[in-house]
């Protein structure tokens, strides 16, 4: 990464915001970063080491990989083992263990597994190989689900019938709600993810925030975003309030991306 004056100013701001958080945390607090991208950014930028010891960051379960349950991985591996199927997936599902093996292992043993950057690439593969059924493995939250919805609508319009989706997408607020089924969960705030919130909107966290009295702050993925988010969570705790705040206004609105939600509504319905 190149160093320029802007970058230097940012880094200074990051340091100073950290000092504020340090001073503000007078009692132990634990926040959960819901999203794996936050976890990675926190790790990559060494944010944890900058924070006071009394502030604990708990990694949430809400990365696409962690919320895909083993039997679904097994079913995906089962699909990939069929000779008439090409399984198409994002790379991150490959190494996830099923009950006996993983997609990566199945691939090494001859199963047809293609890694793509976008589900739309699955349609291209389906057109190139009309004798095979191309199955996209849909894992992840509303961001991926809306992209997959658009892809399904395209397949439908173009009558690409050898393309299908194994949908294991999850709804963010339901998954978060599920966390509170666990009595041991003791956290003082949620650092809510950026991209998913771009789609679902800040409003989506309001029921959760109200039902469990849990402060929710939506933040982007840059170090400054994350620290701003943590800072707001600290402040809410000190003031003993719980509300939804959005420090990622450049990408997240209160009501979310209506177009994407419309596409999801057209294609998907809630399971269970």
């Amino acid at each position: 990464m190149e160093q320029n004056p802007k970058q230097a100013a940012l880094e200074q701001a990051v340091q100073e915001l950290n000092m504020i958080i340090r001073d503000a945390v007078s009692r132990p607090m634990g926040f959960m970063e819901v999203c794996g991208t936050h976890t990675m950014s926190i790790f990559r930028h060494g944010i944890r080491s900058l924070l006071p010891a009394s502030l604990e960051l708990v990694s949430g379960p809400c990365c696409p990989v962690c919320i895909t349950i083993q039997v679904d991985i097994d079913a995906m591996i089962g699909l990939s083992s069929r000779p008439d199927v090409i399984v198409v997936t994002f790379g991150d599902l490959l190494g996830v263990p099923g009950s006996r093996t993983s997609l990566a292992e199945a691939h090494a043993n001859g199963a047809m597994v293609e890694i793509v950057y976008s589900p739309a690439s699955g349609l291209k593969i389906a057109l190139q190989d009309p004798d095979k059924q191309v199955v996209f493995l849909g894992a992840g939250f509303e961001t991926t689900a809306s992209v997959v919805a658009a892809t399904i609508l395209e397949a439908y319009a173009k009558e690409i019938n050898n393309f299908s989706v194994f949908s294991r997408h999850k709804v963010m607020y339901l998954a978060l709600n599920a966390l509170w089924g666990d009595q041991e969960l003791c956290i003082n705030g949620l650092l809510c993810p950026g991209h998913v919130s771009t789609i679902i909107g800040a409003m989506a966290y309001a029921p959760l925030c109200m039902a469990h009295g849990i402060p929710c702050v939506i933040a982007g993925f840059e170090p400054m975003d994350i620290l701003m988010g943590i800072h707001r969570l600290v402040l809410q705790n000190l003031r003993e309030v719980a509300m939804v705040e959005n420090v990622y206004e450049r990408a997240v609105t209160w009501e979310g991306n209506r177009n994407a939600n419309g596409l999801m509504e057209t294609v998907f319905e809630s399971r269970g």
Partner: protein
Amino acid sequence: MARLGYIEDSGLAIRSTFSHLDAEKRFEIESWARKGGKAAFVVT
């Protein structure tokens, strides 16, 4: 941490309009398998 049953219920299924694009329906991945049987799936 979260109970898997709850997490599973928080999923999105493909509407029946698009059932031919739904791998689950196309391949009849049996639902009993999700209740935790051994070799937990059958693809027919």
